[in-house]
């Protein structure tokens, strides 16, 4: 987060987008832990709400990404971000596919699909960092 705030190569809009991604990552993880803890200690009716909570930051981001892409004037940066998002979606899909096959052989930890959002954010940020480095 500090790197995003102090990086002089980023314009304010890109910095905000990076911070949004990082915040989503942290918020999703915290809400996931909170809902997991809450589900063990609350009424069943509340569990539905608790299970939906970790999806909120991700859904918010899904609305904000198109907004960012509309605002970003630099078409090259826009292309980099779109590529990074595609890479971001790719990693959870690969992991889920492997997980799906593992279920047939030996059921692994069932909580892994819950980490899809985190995997997406990490992969997208990583892909963006690689591309920015590649074209610097």
């Amino acid at each position, binding site marked *: 987060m500090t790197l995003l705030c102090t990086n002089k*190569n980023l*314009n304010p809009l890109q910095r905000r987008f990076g911070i949004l991604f990082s915040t989503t990552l942290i918020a999703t993880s915290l809400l996931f832990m909170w809902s997991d803890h809450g589900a063990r200690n609350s009424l069943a009716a509340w569990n539905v709400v608790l299970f939906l909570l970790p999806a909120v930051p991700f859904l918010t981001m899904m609305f904000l990404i198109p907004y960012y892409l509309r605002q970003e*004037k*630099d*078409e*090259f*940066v826009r*292309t980099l971000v779109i590529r990074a998002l595609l890479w971001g979606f790719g990693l959870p899909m690969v992991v889920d596919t492997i997980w799906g096959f593992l279920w047939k052989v030996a059921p692994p930890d069932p909580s892994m699909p819950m980490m899809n959002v985190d995997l997406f954010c990490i992969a997208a940020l990583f892909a963006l960092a690689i591309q*920015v480095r590649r*074209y*610097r």
Partner: protein
Amino acid sequence: VKNRLRVLRAERNWSQADLAQRLEVSRQSVNAIETGKFDPSLPLAFRIARLFDSSIEAIFLDSETETPQ
């Protein structure tokens, strides 16, 4: 597509950052266009052409012919 952006920029003694500022894009964009890793959209190509007081065909070279018009 190949282009003469680097030559035109050098003629005016502009750095990539100078050109980027004039085009209102990032320096990375200028670098990517110059090295042929990124093809600009038509509006950006027009902006580049206007900046260098030239035509698009004189800056961007058709890969089939590779000669400026």
